[in-house]
Each structure stands twice: as structure tokens, then as C-alpha cells.
């Protein structure tokens, strides 16, 4: 894979300047945003429907924007080295940058529909990036899976947004937040909630939609580090945080978020311990982190409303802490993969000598992840604990978060201690440190985690509290500090660390137990997904085999049956079956003709001889012509007679030339009765409609006008002729065209030599299936 000698394309280094520049730009906004001045810019997009390209930089948006651009800078730098010598680096880099911009769009949009647009763009770019190794079927499957799962959620979310917009009267988040519309009391509140949560939970991979995220690790490591850990998967968390002041505060909101989040956190932390692939372990710890964020956004605080909204502070702080440690760990995992050739912790060990810088970066990140003082992770964890203790679900929430965190401590040890400090396996090729772009980013982020832990007040006042304020809907008064004294959260921290270390020590026994427990689960999300996709494929095949069966006769039958059934039903429902008020005088000759026509029609159907059938059909036509004649329409009658004669003659000639149809199947038994019923119903309904129409008063306005104006203005004594060539000349032009077209088509069809041109033959030799690709449906 890696070609160390390959050149790094210049653009992939230069492109780093884009996120770096954006980071500086956003950083320059920090003072004003922290001071409560949000930036806002808007241009119309589809103003008629209230969709404006409106962007809004407040505390929450700014925190995410800084994470996206800050982590993005290092990821792009890392990727430029990581992808050295890989094919399609240009496309890869372009998608990565496109993703970054889309993600910025998500977190800065003020308009829900615009947010959705960017949301879907992140889905698309994620799809393209997961499928980078497109020769690998697992990568293709993972790409499709992420698209389907998050795409399904997004569609539900779109419906939710429409409901939300209709209820609030605007798609603008600012207006929703400012307005006093009581969405929680809206009759569609639960529907909105479910739909929006569907979008957020799928994107942020909450149980039971979590399975796509570990599979998405098929992407190159820079993508996993960036999209599927630090940024994109946080979009769901971001959305929940964003909408918390709008939709939150209800029991439904609190219970759902806390429940799903807590379960996801504990479940995936447990699964993380059973994995042996570094990226898989990290993916599951990411799931845990997402679960924690979701849980704390929803976690209802039991203390009075005027107290500090600790849940919001905890969630925001954890987002920040997680981004600072998870991206470095992923990048280190990628570096290990690069230099040691594997990511399986069972075959890794002793890398400390060969990769000192990576070790340093990984250690910093892992310490923060474990929540060891004085890292940011410790500060974050303390807030999580005090928030959980103070919540309405006090004991349960605390138990869940402590359990999950303890397992995360073991996971951190697994990820760092095993590869770097463990025994080095003998059979490995000599590992080597990656070039500087591969560890500098991890190191800087690790140091940042340390810095934020040492100076928590700085991080909180400038970044986290403004963000938490946006989540809570009011500015929290919160004093952040590294050391809170010996209190319950600190005790829990100690418990967490010791439990985590204990679990690491006993990891073989623990993973065995966990593994067998997990294997006993009847359904996994992944298998449910497969079942559903296969189900859709199978249903579609069966469904299509039934409706598009390839038998022309059945198509005709269905079309006629539809016609008969729908018209008859309407006739009955609308009660318009009516006999004409006056029974028209039907002469003896007319009765005779009617009987003749009916009898010939019967002969046509019953006859086994084609010639007989076509002659009988001719009699039907002639009979109708005679009826026209009896009613004085001699022009029409003449036309009809000529047409009938020609049809009989031509069809008879063709039939004589035709060979007997092979494989012709005649209906027998029930099929024949079914056909008879359908045709009778169609005939009957047509008759009934006709009778009903003739019962209505007739209109002679057009006729009178034509009769009156034909001679003086149309200059023709024959009214029919004047109608044809003048009043309705355009129709005649069309009909003439029809004849000419039919003639041209017939001419070319007859003269078409069924031999292939030289070129077509050559092509079909090159690609033998090219001609056969379009097989006819069997005609019967």
C-alpha cells in the first residue's frame, strides 16, 4: 500500500491552509461571541417558502466550527502523508474538503432546511469517503449502509422539520428561539420529536442505529478520525443541542434522550472491550461518547430551574474533550497501521522505542480519555458526574455513566498500553515512526487537552459556557476549576479509574464473558439491516414478477379490468345509471342490424380460423356503417365502409402470409370465463355511460354555427368538408401527419435488413453481450 518514495502532491499540503485559515477566522470571533454578540448573515434562497441561506455564529456553532476547522487542519495534514502513494488522492482530498465545508454549514445554519441541505451533503461526502477503497466489497457495503441508515433518518427529519416549521411559523432557528410559540403543547409535538430524533439518532449512531459506525471504519483512517469520530457523527448531537431550547424540557424529551443515550453509552463501551482491531475499539468508544452526549443533553435536572443547567454544560464539555482525545488516538492508530502493518492489538506490542512521538501523543490523549487529572478529560468527567448525581434519575444515571467511563478507561489502556508498552511480537517487521505530519497533529491536540485541563476557566469562559448557554437557552453561571475538593464526583472518579484498571488487568476474563454474552444476542443491528435489505430485494423481485409478468394478454386484461371496475364503481357510487327518459324509436331494420353485429362479434371471438374472424369483424364494421347510413350520416358511413373493406383485405392478405403462431396458448376454463366477464363489464359500462349521456339534453351550438357560416365564410356547401379543411383544419393536418408517419415507419421497417452493420458487428464481437443486453419479454 504505502509507497514511501511516492511524492506528496503539492495540493494536498497546500489545502491545509484552508481549514487553518478558517480556524483563525473563527477564533477571531471568539471574544465577541463570548461577549454575547452572535454573528449573523443571510441571503435569500427560496424566500417564498422561508428558506434563506442564513448563517448564525453563536457559542454552540462557534465551538463546533473551531473543532471542525481545528481538527480538520491536522487531519488534512495527516492525510497528505497518510495517503502518500495511494490512487485517487485528488478526489479523496476534494471530498474531505467538501465534507468539511458541509459540516461547517450544518453547525452554522440558522435555517432548518438549509441545515438539512448541508446535513445531506455530509451524508453524501461520507458515502464517497467510506467507499474510498471501492475495490473492497466491505467498504462498498459500509458506504451503502451508512447512506441508507443516515439517509432514512434524514428523510424522517425533513418531515419533522416541515412540521416544526409549520408549527413555529418559520424555519429560522433564531426566530424559533426568540418566539414564544409553545411547541411542547402543540398537538404534533410527539410526531415532531420522533421524526427529528430519528434523524439525530441515526446520524449520531445511537442504539439501535449504531451499527453503521463501526462498519464505516472501512474508510481510510483520516476519514474515520475526522468524520466518524470528531465531527460528522456529532451532527446528531449538535442538532439535539441546538433544538434543546425549542423541543426540550418535556418528559418525552428527557426520557428518550437519557434512555437511548445511556444505553448506547454502556452497551458500546462494553462492546469496545471485546474488539481487537484498534479502529474498532475506538469506533465503539466513539459510540459511547455519542451516547453520553445525547444522554446529558436530555438529562433533566432535579434542582430548581434557576440553578445551573449542568446537563448542557456537561454535554458541551464532553463534546470538546472527546474531540481533543479521539482524533489523536485515531491518527495514532493509523500511524501504527502504517508502520507496523496491522491494527490488531493481539499482534502489536513494544512500539515505544520505534515510535516515541506517537507514544507521547497517544499517552496524552489516553490520559485525557481516562479522565486523569490534570487533563481536560478529568474536568469533563467531574461535571458529568455532578450533573448525573443532580438529575432526576440520580442513581441510575450515575451508575450508567460511571460504568461506561470505567470501561472507557480500560479501552484507553487497551489502545495505548498494549501496542506501545506490551511485549513486542517477534515476527513483525521493524516498525518505524511516521513522518512529522503524522504525529504533530495528535501531539498538539494532546497538549491542548492538557492545557484545557490546567486552565479550565479559560476554556469554559471563552468557549464552553457560551456554547452551553445556547444549548440551555440561558447563560449558565458556572465556575469551572480543576479541583473541587474531596466530594462525591471525585470519589466516583477514583472508583472509575480503579475499576477501569482492574478491568484492564483482568481483561482476558472480562472480554471472554462479555463476548459470550454479546454473542447470545438474538439480533444485531447489522443482521437486521441485512435482513431488511434482502427483504426489500426479495419483495421487489416477487412484486415485479407478479405485476410485470411479461405476458401481453395479462397486461391487456388488467387494463380492461381496471377500466371496467373503475367506471362501473363510479356509475354505481354516483348513482348515474339511468335509462333514457324517452325510449328512442328503434326500427325493425335497426334491430336486425344490432343482432347481426352482435352475432358477428361472437363469431369473431369464437372462431378458430383467423380468416373467419377477420371476415366476421368486417361484418361488425359494415353493420355499424349501415347504422350510420340509416341516420343520414352518409359521409361517415362511406368512410367507415372503405376503412372496413381495406382492413379486411389487408389483414386477410397478411394473415395468409403469416406462419401459424408457435406457442400460442388459448385460454380455457376459468381463464375464459374471467376474460368473458371483464369484456362484458367493459361493454356494459360503456353502454350504460352512453345511455346516460344521451339521456341528457343535447347541444347544437357548434352544429348550428357550422351550418350557418360554412357557405358565407367557409365558402363550401359541404359542411363536413368545411369542418375538415377549415374550421378544424389543424386536426386534419395532424391526421395527415399521422398517415405520413405511419407510411415512413412502415417503409423503413419493411426495408430494414436484419443484418448488422460492420461497426455494430465489430462492437458486438468486442462486447458480446452488447446486443443481447436487451432481451425481449416473452410474447405470448
Amino acid at each position: 500500500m504505502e509507497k514511501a518514495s511516492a511524492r506528496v502532491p503539492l495540493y494536498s499540503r497546500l489545502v491545509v491552509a484552508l481549514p487553518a485559515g478558517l480556524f483563525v477566522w473563527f477564533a477571531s470571533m471568539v471574544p465577541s461571541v463570548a461577549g454575547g454578540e452572535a454573528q449573523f448573515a443571510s441571503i435569500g434562497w427560496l424566500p417564498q417558502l422561508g428558506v434563506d441561506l442564513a448563517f448564525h455564529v453563536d457559542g454552540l456553532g462557534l465551538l463546533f466550527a473551531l473543532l471542525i476547522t481545528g481538527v480538520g487542519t491536522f487531519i488534512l495534514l495527516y492525510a497528505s502523508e497518510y495517503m502518500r502513494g495511494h490512487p485517487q488522492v485528488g478526489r479523496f482530498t476534494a471530498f474531505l474538503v467538501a465534507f468539511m465545508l458541509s459540516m461547517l454549514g450544518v453547525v452554522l445554519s440558522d435555517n432548518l432546511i438549509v441545515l438539512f441541505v448541508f446535513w445531506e451533503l455530509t451524508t453524501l461526502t461520507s458515502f464517497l469517503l467510506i467507499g474510498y477503497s471501492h475495490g473492497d466489497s466491505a467498504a462498498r457495503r459500509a458506504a451503502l449502509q451508512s447512506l441508507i441508515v443516515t439517509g432514512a433518518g434524514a428523510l424522517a427529519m425533513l418531515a419533522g422539520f416541515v412540521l416544526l416549521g409549520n408549527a413555529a411559523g418559520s424555519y429560522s432557528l433564531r426566530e424559533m428561539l426568540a418566539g414564544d410559540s409553545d411547541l411542547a403543547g402543540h398537538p404534533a409535538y410527539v410526531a415532531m420529536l420522533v421524526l427529528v430524533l430519528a434523524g439525530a439518532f441515526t446520524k449520531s449512531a445511537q442504539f439501535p442505529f449504531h451499527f453503521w459506525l463501526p462498519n464505516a471504519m472501512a474508510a481510510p483512517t483520516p476519514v474515520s478520525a475526522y468524520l466518524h469520530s470528531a465531527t460528522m457523527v456529532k451532527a446528531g448531537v449538535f442538532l439535539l443541542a441546538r433544538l434543546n431550547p425549542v423541543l426540550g424540557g418535556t418528559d418525552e424529551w428527557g426520557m428518550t434522550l437519557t434512555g437511548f443515550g445511556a444505553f448506547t453509552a454502556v452497551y458500546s463501551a462494553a462492546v469496545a472491550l471485546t474488539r481487537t482491531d484498534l479502529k474498532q475499539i475506538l469506533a465503539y468508544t466513539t459510540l459511547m461518547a455519542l451516547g453520553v452526549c445525547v444522554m446529558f443533553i436530555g438529562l433533566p435536572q432535579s434542582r430548581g430551574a434557576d440553578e445551573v443547567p449542568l446537563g448542557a454544560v456537561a454535554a458541551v464539555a464532553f463534546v470538546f474533550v472527546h474531540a481533543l482525545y479521539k482524533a489523536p488516538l485515531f491518527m495514532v492508530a493509523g500511524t501504527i497501521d502504517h508502520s507496523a502493518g496491522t491494527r490488531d492489538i493481539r499482534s502489536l506490542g513494544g512500539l515505544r522505542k520505534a515510535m516515541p512521538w506517537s507514544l507521547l501523543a497517544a499517552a496524552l490523549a489516553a490520559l485525557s480519555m481516562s479522565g486523569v487529572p490534570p487533563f481536560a478529560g478529568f474536568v469533563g468527567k467531574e461535571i458529568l458526574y455532578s450533573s448525573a448525581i443532580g438529575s432526576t434519575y440520580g442513581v441510575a444515571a450515575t451508575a450508567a455513566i460511571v460504568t461506561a467511563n470505567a470501561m472507557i478507561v480500560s479501552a484507553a489502556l487497551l489502545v495505548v498500553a498494549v501496542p506501545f508498552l506490551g511485549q513486542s511480537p517477534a515476527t513483525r517487521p521493524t516498525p518505524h515512526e511516521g513522518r512529522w505530519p503524522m504525529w504533530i497533529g495528535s501531539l498538539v491536540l494532546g497538549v491542548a487537552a492538557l492545557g484545557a485541563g490546567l486552565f479550565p476557566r479559560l476554556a469554559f469562559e471563552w468557549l464552553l459556557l457560551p456554547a452551553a448557554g445556547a444549548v440551555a437557552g440561558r447563560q449558565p453561571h458556572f465556575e469551572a476549576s480543576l479541583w473541587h475538593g474531596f466530594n462525591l464526583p471525585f470519589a466516583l472518579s477514583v472508583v472509575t479509574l480503579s475499576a477501569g484498571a482492574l478491568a484492564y488487568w483482568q481483561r482476558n476474563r472480562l472480554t471472554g464473558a462479555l463476548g459470550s454474552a454479546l454473542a447470545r444476542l438474538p439480533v444485531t443491528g447489522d443482521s437486521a439491516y441485512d435482513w431488511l435489505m434482502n427483504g426489500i430485494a426479495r419483495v421487489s423481485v416477487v412484486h415485479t414478477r407478479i405485476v410485470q409478468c411479461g405476458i401481453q394478454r395479462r397486461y391487456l386484461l388488467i387494463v380492461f379490468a381496471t377500466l371496467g371496475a373503475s367506471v362501473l364503481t363510479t356509475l354505481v357510487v354516483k348513482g348515474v345509471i339511468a335509462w333514457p327518459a324517452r325510449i328512442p324509436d328503434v326500427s325493425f331494420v335497426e334491430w336486425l342490424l344490432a343482432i347481426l353485429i352482435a352475432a358477428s362479434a361472437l363469431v369473431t371471438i369464437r372462431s378458430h380460423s383467423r380468416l373467419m374472424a377477420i371476415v366476421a369483424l368486417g361484418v361488425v364494421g359494415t353493420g355499424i356503417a349501415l347504422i350510420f347510413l340509416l341516420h343520414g350520416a352518409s359521409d361517415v358511413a362511406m368512410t367507415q365502409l372503405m376503412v372496413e373493406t381495406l382492413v379486411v383485405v389487408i389483414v386477410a392478405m397478411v394473415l395468409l402470409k403469416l406462419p401459424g403462431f408457435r406457442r400460442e396458448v388459448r385460454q380455457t376454463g376459468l381463464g375464459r370465463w374471467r376474460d368473458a366477464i371483464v369484456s362484458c363489464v367493459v361493454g356494459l359500462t360503456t353502454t350504460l355511460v352512453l345511455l346516460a349521456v344521451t339521456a341528457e339534453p343535447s347541444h347544437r351550438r357548434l352544429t348550428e354555427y357550422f351550418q350557418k357560416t360554412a357557405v358565407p365564410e367557409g365558402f363550401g356547401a359541404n359542411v363536413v368538408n368545411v369542418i375538415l379543411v377549415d374550421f378544424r383544419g389543424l386536426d386534419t393536418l395532424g391526421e395527415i401527419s399521422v398517415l405520413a408517419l405511419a407510411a415512413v415507419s412502415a417503409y423503413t421497417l419493411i426495408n430494414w435488413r436484419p443484418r448488422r452493420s460492420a461497426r455494430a458487428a465489430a462492437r458486438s464481437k468486442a462486447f458480446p453481450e452488447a446486443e443481447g443486453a436487451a432481451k425481449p419479454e416473452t410474447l405470448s
Partner: protein
Amino acid sequence: MTWLVAGPIVVPLSAAVVTGFLMGYGGIQRLVSLCSGIALFGTAVALLTNVWNEGVTAAQIGNWPSPFGITLVADHLSAVLVLITAIIALAAIVYSFEDIERRGLATVLHPLLHALMAGVCGAFLAGDIFNLYVWFEVMLIASIGLLVVGGTRAQLDASVRYAALSLIATTLLLTGIGLLYGLTGTLNMADLHLRVQEVENEGLLTVIAVIFIVAFGIKSAVFPLFFWLPASYHTPKVTVSAVFSGLLTKVGVYALMRVFTLIFTNDIGYTHEILLWVAGFTMVTGVLGAASRNDLRRILSFHIVSQIGYMIMGLALYTPLGLLGGIFYTVHHIIVKANLFFVAGAIRRFGGSSRLARLGGLYRDAPLLAALFFIPAFSLAGFPPLSGFWAKFLLIRASMDVHEYAIAATALAVGLLTAYSMTKIWLNAFWKGRPEDAMPTRPPSRSEGFFLLAPVVGLAAITLAIGLYVQPFYELAERAAQELMHPAEYVGAVLGEDAVSGAGPSPAGPGGSGN
């Protein structure tokens, strides 16, 4: 004004005659064909400009006063559709230069193509329901001719199926027109709008409306009348199937939109409810059909059916926003769907097959083609910021505004399945490695690169433009929808302002659309 409105019929009809006589003169025929395509485009632009500035424009053919003579009418809907038709025609002509042989019988394509365009434009512009029928016939015969260009067995088989089922529709349409004439004594559609309000037997009018649903339903390939489409669209030359996919069924949809806003609005609770159900079933059955297929053109053909459902849905909602969404969807669909067929042709040319199992590796070997497939495919699947997203969004919003949640949910779910089958193509044709036994992909020659890909690039650019700069397109669709909801302007343009005063505005829909 008469010539302007008649232009989109006169230009292609004349072109059909001239190119017909030029069969066998390869180069000159192509040149004339191309020039006619450009002329049609110019005429269409002029017509739309005129309608945009002056409102509904009518032309009384032969100067006979309506409703006695035949009227051609261009409102915003007609003018927009004529313009899209011209764009597709132009793209098809360019594409055909590489797709169709230069000499020989295949050059019959040009006269037939122009005749088809005359039929399509005629149908869009007809202000007389019998005249509409005539243009349907022109389309039918021209399309049968086009279907057999190339003369393979599969094409003959397809043309028999197509012809038989289409003829039923045509006959049925004629029956419906006859009955309607018997009931009202007029054929002029604006006049019909007034006359049907005088009909006392409203139930009978509803019965006739149902006959029209079935007749136009076959034409627009709705459930359960769509069989002819998947049975035929994958067989002809790529140029032909692209034109068919873009335009033919949409004329049926247009006709439904026209008559079910202008004429049959007496029993919306019944007729439009039927249409709503039809729309839902059409969406689902089409997308399932597409999911079951493994050949590019067959997949795309079934998607046409599915998307007809969305357009009908807009009409069935019968609110300003619903109709707007339906119209927007129609325009978006024509561009995207024709483009996908063009791309499918290019894939077959360069990749050697149109069956997914035999394709692969095009992402690596033909990145431009990959990009050109990606845009229309994901637009079709409704991903932003492409035209399909807005089309879908408008319809979802419209249905939710009037609390039709079931159809909104169906539309969203079908959208997901559409994405599924587009990604199926993407994964198999582009990402998957080439099958062992397949020939290596063939780099396009310069001529192929230009003639096959230029139309694709152009149409993809339009898709992007609609997606990114949606407002003017929305406004156009909005005007068109307003005219459909309130036919007074249409009627006034045809019959004179005096006629309108007698008729009130058409009854309001089941609910307004809020902004």
C-alpha cells in the same frame, strides 16, 4: 401572436418534412436537423418570454372565433414544458450524431424525432380537447416508428406491446371526448370549463372524468396501467429511449394536470382522491420494479413509473403548493431522467454493457463519466442541493400542509428506495472492480466524447442550476400553478374577458397552502 404560439408545432413539423426528404444525405440532414432543433429552442424561449411578460397567450387557428375553431393556448405551464421539450430535443439531436448511423435507414430517426416533437408541443399547446387527441396520435405513431429504428427483435417485440396498450388509451380518450362532447356540446377546453358548470348530472361528469383518468393514466404509465413502459423503454436506441423517458409520459401527466384543473373539478373529493391513491401505488410499484432490475435502462425505466407518482401526487393534492410541486417535479424529472438515459448509453459504450453484473471499474477508468452520472442520479434520489431535492421538498411540504401524512410518508420512503437503486448502479458500475472476463473499458474517441457527453454536461448543468438557484424556477412553477388553480385568465385569453365574468373562480381545494 398566432405564429409565436403555433411556432413550436410548425418548426418541428417542417423539420420533419425536410429531414424526411434528406434521408440518405447524411451530413446535410444532420445539419438541418440540428438547425431545426436550435430554431425550436429559440421559438420556445420567445414563447416563454412572451407568456412571462404578457400572460396567457392564445391563438385562434384559421381565425375562427373560439369555441368554434381550434385554439392553441400557451400559459406558463405549456410554455415551460415546450421549452423543456426543445432542450431535450436539442440534446437528443446532438447525442444522435454519435448514437445513430450516419447513412441508411437509421436516418429516419431525424424526421420521426421532429414529428414527435411536433406532437409533444402540439399536445402542450392544444386548447381544444379533440386537438389534444390528435397530437396524442401524432406522438403515438411517431414513437412507434422511433421504437423500431434499428429493427432488432427486442425492439419489434417492444413496439407490439407499446402499440397495443397505447391504442387502448387512444381509443378510450376518444370515447371520453365523445361523451364529454355529448354532455356539453363543446370541445374547446376553456369553453368546457364554463359548460361543465352548467351540467346538472354531476355524477355523469364524474364517470367521464374516471374514463379520462384511465385513458391518460395509461399514457402517463400510472399504477396499474404502466405495463407498456417497462416492457419497451429499454429496447430502442439510446437517443430514442432518452427522449421517450423524458417526454412521452409527461404529456400524459400534463394532460391530467390540464383537464383535472380546468374541466373536472366538480367532484374533487372523488376524482382527486382516486388520483392520490393512484399516485401512492405508482410510486411504490415503480420503485420496487426498479429495485428488482439489474440492467441500467430497465432500472431507469421503472423509476419513470415511480416518479410519475410524485407528479400525480402534486395534482391530487390540488393546492397551489401541491400543483407547484407537481409542475416543478415534472420539469426536474424530464431533465434528469433523459440525462440518465444518455449517461446509461455512454456507460454502455465505454463500459461495454448495460448489465450491472458485467460492469465495473468505471470510477477508476472514467471519472468524468462517474461525475456525470452522480449528479443526475443523486438529483433523482432527491439529494440536495440538486433539483430533485426541491421537487421532493415542495411535494412533502404541500402534502403535510394539508395533513396528507400517508402520502408524504410514502413519498419519503420511496425517495429512500430511489437512493438505494441509484447507489446500486453506482456501486456496481463504478466502484466494483471490473469482472474478470469483461473487456477493459474503452476510452472514448474525441467524437464520442463530444457528442455523447456534451448533452449530458448541459443537462447536468441545468440540474445543478435549478438546485442552486431555485428561486426563478420556483416563481415560474408558482405562476403556472396559480393559472391552473384559477383558470379565469386561461379562459379569458381563449374566449375573451366577457366570458369569464359569467364564471366564478374554480372551487377551492381541500385546503389552502400557507407560506
